[in-house]
């Protein structure tokens, strides 16, 4: 026996509006005006004559208006006759629901979330599905997943499955979920199918010209779109948080994006290792970004574990951004000034120090001293630059030797004060100095061996070095094993690099100020000096920090297997990573954790790396995709719209659609009401 069911049963409540006309008729009677009227008899006679006709008309209008108010919600509820599978004989109808549970679905919608509303709608669809028919529920958070049993489930099972859908921090993959559903429709081979896209329709979820249609035989499955939040609220998100060392501590720069079409202000809070800094207020322009800068004292040799948080808004999931900065991430450089001057630009360190500072705040921490005042403890520096230094005391030479062998970097540049004998006496420099310097006439520097890391900025071409004029230099004699990576135009070695212990050394045969050349005023000087120091300090790097997005898969180089992943400072339950040995080291495959936060990978050798897992910034943008584009992608634009309106779609529910008849009844009732009204 056929059962009357509804596609949108929630609208049936509106049928209660049908009691309004009788209520208005009973309660809304006006108090009559009393009028003493001489031609009373005429009035009475006319009233008597028309009384029965008017009563009939009133009753008719009451009935017709009541019917109108009942029929309209009934039509919106879209009734259909659900025939049992046995009666249909040839198969079942399939309801395919794509439910978007990505991060943006957690946005506020009234007192609940968009996901709550979508789940409620999915439950309604499941309730409207005949027990004989089947239901498919696929979630669109990346990676897409089938929630109901393969290939399809009964409505009862579907309702249970809907309850199990949880909010995620993942990005959206409507295309992936639809692709999954395509396979399921094919596997289930239903008689008919109808699709439901339950999504916030955020712009990031739909790619241009993406085909989201599902085929069933020669036809496309018709889709109904449900957007739980037609007017999303204002949303700001943390795009990035950059931390750099300063001479006194750290500087944190947070970038906040405003995804709304109106400027907005917010409060931003930063806490380092649980200690909160003073909050700041920022004004973010519409569809723009703004930065907030925090500075605080911090031991630069300690790691920084911090969190930036915004004031709650429409989507709170993107309001917190954790980050980590490994210890010694900036290079601490000690400049040993062999030729100090009172005029700053004539000072030996003037250009070199500025070149290191030009690359951005905190990249290098620079301190200056003199050969006679070389600190006893050099271990807190990553690299030392001996700039035009004279003879060294034996003790100083010994400390430099220990420093380099311990992993430090040493740069030796020449000049008028350079004492070749004491330099050569070290014995471990990658090049020896001749007794005296010589003039050089030909302009330009040559790169004999491309790809040396000390010249990494010039890997794409060393044209910038061709204009550098070196007027005087020591014609270096490379040590065995040393690598000459820079020559003067006459082919003489100008700079050589080599290793000593765990450390690295560069010898530069000319001055790094303007005494013996014009390199400091050439554009190539700045990147070259930065690259020199980075090359030298690499031996001190302790651990890496990687940034991943929620759900992102990444292969990382680690020291050795096995490797475990656990949340930093949070759940201590470690997760073993897929790991294999490779090229003397190992690689581990990290499947992005499902929640944003700070994670650490540990190996038998100790802590190896930190993972900063962040949400997809695109998820924070709640801007809608035009509905027409979504309909076009689903293949329903211009095709099913009329069908859906009239209700003659083959895939409507699981049986004959009745609401078109209800619509016809509405038209007839409306016409009758008008006719009766005009008849007076």
């Amino acid at each position: 026996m056929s059962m009357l069911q509804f596609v949108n049963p929630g609208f049936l409540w509106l049928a209660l509006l049908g009691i309004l006309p009788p209520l208005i008729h009973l309660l809304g009677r006006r108090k009559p005006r009393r009028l003493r009227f001489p031609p009373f008899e005429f009035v009475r006679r006319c009233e008597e004559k028309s009384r029965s006709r008017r009563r009939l008309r009133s009753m008719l209008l009451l009935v017709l208006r009541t019917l109108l108010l009942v029929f309209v919600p009934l039509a919106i509820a879209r009734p259909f006759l659900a025939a049992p599978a046995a009666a249909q004989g040839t198969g079942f109808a399939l309801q395919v629901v794509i439910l978007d549970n990505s991060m943006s679905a957690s946005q506020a919608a009234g007192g609940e979330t968009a996901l709550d509303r979508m789940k409620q709608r999915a439950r309604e669809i499941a309730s409207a599905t005949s027990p004989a028919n089947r239901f498919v529920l696929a979630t669109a958070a990346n990676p897409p997943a089938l929630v109901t049993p393969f290939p399809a489930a009964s409505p009862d099972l579907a309702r249970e499955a809907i309850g199990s859908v949880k909010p995620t921090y993942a990005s959206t993959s409507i295309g992936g979920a639809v692709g999954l559903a395509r396979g399921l429709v094919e596997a289930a081979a239903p008689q008919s199918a109808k699709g439901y896209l339950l999504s916030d329709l955020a712009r990031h979820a739909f790619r241009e010209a993406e085909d989201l249609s599902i085929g069933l035989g020669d036809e496309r499955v018709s889709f109904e779109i449900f957007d739980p939040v037609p007017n999303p609220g204002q949303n700001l998100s943390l795009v990035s948080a950059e931390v750099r060392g300063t001479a006194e501590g750290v500087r944190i720069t947070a970038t906040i994006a405003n995804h709304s079409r109106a400027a907005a202000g917010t409060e931003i809070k930063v806490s380092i290792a649980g200690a909160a800094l003073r909050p700041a207020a920022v004004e973010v322009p519409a569809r723009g970004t703004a930065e907030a800068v925090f500075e605080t004292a911090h031991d630069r040799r300690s790691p920084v574990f911090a969190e930036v948080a915004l004031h709650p808004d429409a989507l709170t999931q993107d309001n917190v951004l954790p980050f980590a900065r490994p210890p010694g991430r900036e290079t601490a450089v000690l400049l040993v000034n062999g030729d100090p001057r009172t005029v700053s630009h004539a000072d030996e360190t003037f250009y070199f120090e500025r070149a290191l500072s030009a690359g951005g705040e905190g990249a290098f921490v620079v301190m200056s001293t003199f050969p006679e005042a070389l600190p006893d403890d050099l271990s807190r520096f990553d690299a030392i630059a001996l700039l035009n230094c004279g003879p060294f005391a034996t003790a100083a030479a010994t400390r430099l030797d220990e420093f380099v062998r311990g992993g430090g970097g040493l740069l030796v540049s020449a000049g008028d004060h350079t004492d070749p004998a004491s330099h050569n006496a070290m014995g471990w420099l990658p090049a020896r100095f001749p007794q005296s310097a010589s003039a050089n006439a030909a302009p330009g520097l040559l790169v004999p061996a491309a790809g040396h890391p000390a010249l990494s900025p010039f890997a794409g071409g060393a044209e910038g070095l061709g204009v550098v004029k070196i007027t005087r230099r020591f014609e270096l004699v490379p040590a065995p094993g040393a690598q000459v990576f820079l020559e003067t135009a006459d082919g003489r070695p100008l700079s050589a690099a080599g290793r000593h212990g765990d450390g690295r050394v560069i010898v530069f045969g000319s001055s790094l100020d303007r005494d013996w050349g014009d390199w400091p005023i050439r554009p190539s000087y700045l990147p070259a000096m930065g690259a020199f120091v980075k090359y030298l300090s690499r031996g001190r790097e302790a651990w890496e920090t990687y940034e991943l997005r929620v759900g992102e898969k990444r292969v990382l180089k680690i020291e050795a297997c096995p490797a475990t992943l656990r949340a930093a400072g949070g759940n201590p339950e470690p997760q073993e990573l897929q790991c294999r040995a490779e090229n003397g080291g190992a690689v581990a495959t990290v499947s992005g954790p499902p929640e944003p936060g700070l994670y650490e990978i540990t190996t038998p050798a100790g802590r190896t790396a930190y993972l900063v897992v962040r949400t997809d910034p695109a998820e924070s943008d709640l801007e809608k995709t035009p509905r027409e584009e979504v309909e076009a992608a689903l293949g329903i634009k211009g095709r099913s719209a009329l069908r859906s309106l009239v209700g003659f779609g083959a895939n409507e529910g699981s049986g004959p659609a009745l609401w078109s008849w209800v619509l016809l009844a509405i038209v007839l009732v409306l016409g009758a009401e008008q006719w009766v009204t005009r008849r007076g």
Partner: protein
Amino acid sequence: MNDRPLIDPQVLERLGSLELRARYLVEGTLSGMHASRLSGDNVEFAGHREYVPGEDPKRIDWKAFGRLDRYYIKESLDETNLAVHLAVDCSGSMEYPETGTTKGAYASLLAASLACMALEQGDAAGLYLFPARRVHLPPRASRVYLREIARALETGPREGRASIGAAASELAGMAGRRGLIVLFSDMIDEDPAALDSIIQLSRRGHDVCVFHVLDRSEIGFSASGLTLFCDPESEAQVLVEPDAIREAYLREFGAFLERCRRVCIDAGVDYRLAVTDVPPETALREFLEGRQGRRARA
């Protein structure tokens, strides 16, 4: 005809007594018309009476004064050749509308004005109020008689159900010789033979004129919204949505007016529809012009 209004409605409204208003109205109306008064026939001596201060000194019989050294007025037996009988409907239905000029007030002013006019030209004027506690002032030609007529019109009871037929029969008995009978009524009478009794008056030789006094809202049925209509004469009630019966009412009431007019005209009765929003001098002027026309035709 000069259309310039000679009667200031505000002045007319301020004049408290009906007598004064009637005089003011008559003066204004006649001066506007270049009055042509009705002329009487010869006078038959009846006797003398003492002069009352306030009367026209021209009427003093100076010969009698010379003989008796007292003021006497010489009265004739039959001062006029025309007796004007003014019959005014004072039923409850004439007390409409509840605000503004009622039909009764409008009819009273017209009646008093006609009385004034008749008395001023030496004709006799009498008053008959119907239906309740009927008041009858027989026609007299004394000018001071206007005061009594006006007082009766002002103080006369306005209640009960009008019976035009009975009133006409009674008036026929009282009127005696032929005269001018002017009836002021809204003609709302349940008796379908009411009009016939008026025709009977005409057939007995009286010159009959009917002022059909109505309010504009009765003709146009301007009521709106749910209304409890009450009969002012019987207090019966009926609840009606006026919009629902307007068309039928206008049809029926229009037929009633047309029947009144047709029956009167066919019987030689001078029929005048007097709507209360028409200035009374206009109604009066039209009546007088109509009278002149009738006399000329006769």
